[in-house]
């Protein structure tokens, strides 16, 4: 199984690129003294309006993040942006959250740009509100 050893430290794998560690969609979220108080959707059924919470890890210097929502026909329906960080500083993680209230029920493709580079995309099913 092992072919040979002897690897120089600079040749070893090193994770330095920012990545989305977690993304959540919740009914409500509040920042109370640096801690997030979340109210989740019952049975995980997401309806409009909602809040998204993003956790981005391995952040250095200043950062600019965009989240864009496209409908199933590929048309942009909403967008939010965040700016954070300072030059010369390293952040183990950064959490961003905001409210989205323009979207109606349906399937959406959301994409996340960080410093003008795509770093994440996925789909979101937004359910119709009952009652």
């Amino acid at each position, binding site marked *: 199984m092992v072919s040979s050893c002897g*690897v120089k430290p600079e040749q070893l794998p090193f*994770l*330095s*690129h920012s990545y989305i560690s*977690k993304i959540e969609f919740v009914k409500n979220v509040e920042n109370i003294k640096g801690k997030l108080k979340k109210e989740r959707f019952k049975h995980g059924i997401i309806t409009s309006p909602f809040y998204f919470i993003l956790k981005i890890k391995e952040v250095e210097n200043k950062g600019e993040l965009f989240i864009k929502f496209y409908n199933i026909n590929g*048309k942009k329906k909403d967008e939010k942006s965040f700016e954070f960080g300072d030059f010369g500083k390293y952040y183990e993680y950064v959490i961003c959250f905001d409210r989205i209230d323009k979207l109606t029920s349906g399937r959406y493709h959301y994409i996340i740009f960080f410093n003008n580079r795509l770093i994440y995309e996925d789909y979101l099913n937004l359910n119709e509100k009952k009652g």
Partner: protein
Amino acid sequence: MARLIKYLFLSLLFVETSVLIFAGESLYFKGDYFIYSDDLDYIYGSGKIVLTYESLTIRGDIVYFDIKNLKGVIYGDIHVKKNEYEKRCNALFFRVFPLEFLCEIYLDNINKEGIKDVEDFVIKKSPDNLKKSALYYEFREFKINKDRKIKAKKVIPFVMGLISIPLKKLTIKRGKIPEKTMLYFKNINYSELDGVSLSLLFRLRNKLMKGDYDFKFYDRKLFKNSDEKRGVLVSGQGGVFFNKNKFLDLSAFLNSGDKSFNLTLSHKKDCKYFSYSLSQNISGREHLQTFFELSSNLTFKKMRYIQPTLSFTHNLKSSYAYKISTPLNIWKKMNLNIGMERKILRDNFRSDMLDISTSLKADLSLISLSSDLNFAKDMLEESIRKNFSVSMNLKPLLFLDSNVSIDISSFYMFSELPYVETSYKRITPGVNVNVSSSGILLPAGFVIYPSFIFNQVWNNKESNSTNFNHLLSIEKELGKFRFSLDYSLISRYKSENFWVEGYNSKNINVNFEFKNESNYSFYLKFYFNDNLALENISLTNRVNLPFDITLSSFFLFYKQENKFQSIEIFIEKKVRNKIKIQGGYSLALKRFFLKFLVVQ
């Protein structure tokens, strides 16, 4: 402790070795960082990603690669180059093998270019998810072939989150077993059931015979698991081929421990007008006589509505059975089956039974109906047994926006059994009614779930039984917290001629639940008995710790005896989704314990 050291030593041998040679098409990835989880079969990579496939080169920033489904996505400032062709985009969704991709650019609209049926959806696993695995690898470059075999360079293995020795090259995934005759080493394992075991696969591939046979050599004595000695289990399936067509199916099982075996040879053919099968089974065990049985089956296929089948079984002791059955599809929703079977046993016990049966099943828009009629004649004693049953279920009736559902079903059973020189008849009709609700919203966010079940059986018209079951649940959810109260009242009455006897029993459960599915759960339950006095309190907890370790506990306190009936506290760790290690304290065992369990 010595047992633990032995186990840890053996666990080092768990890593499956490979004797395969890399060949054929492959994808080559290079970058700053890749992580592969053995449990999740998934790769995440980031930093100056370069994917090379034949003359095609793709550059990007991040890659998510689902190895199991051989599909992935690359993000970033993507640059695709093949000879003169060049393309730039934000996301490139790909599948292999061969490599096919779809490029997407996100402006005010999503612009797509490439193979349209490549799905732009890939399951994402972040490095944080992958690092939760018991075994994962970080590396800087790798090759993957169509058999999912991964060869990586500049690799750091991590076992239970702990860094191991960096390696220059490593085959981290075995890939597919080749289609040729070979003896393949699968693994060395340890479990309470088998002790230490060595598993091998013998793959047979030639013109005449093909098959896969598992050999498991075990030693139960090494850890004093059992008095039973070493042994081997062989199991497998294969076939004998004639002119490239399968002529015989073969399935075999052998256990040297209890000296038992089971071998089945079968031949089947599907022709234009009929199909048939022939099967010979031989099985045996030490101190018992060997059992032989020949089975055959012939089905006529050409008739439109019916397919008569003739079955015949025979063993060496002249015991045999033959059966003729004709499934008849009257129309799509109604099926009638008529059959006749005769079983003649001439062993230590002699019997000769003739069985004639019909069954009718119908699934209509309002009701479903099932009926069986059976006559069984004992040809030796000249006695006849008769059975008839019919059951009818009304489709659920829904009221109040489907919030209330009523299910009604009824049945009628008749049987006549020979009894001394006369016969015994039994008639049993009955009805069941079930009324339930999917929940009624009360003020302050409480939800109430009432349900009522009624069951009546008239047994031979002499003794009747009537049951009532009332259930009432009240629930309230508040974020991670859930409260519920369950009330149950059960009434049973039995009347026989003039007399009626019965009883009621009731109980209340009060439950408090606090949970976050991925991190912890706490479940506190108060149980009140028939007199509505508190009888016991139970508390069940689970907390997920780092490295997939779970801390679990269970407490059961009996109020009337004022003592704990049960206390269980243990930590649990899954290793490669194959073995569970549990360690903790049990009041029932009255000791601390350490267990190794095989995950089924």
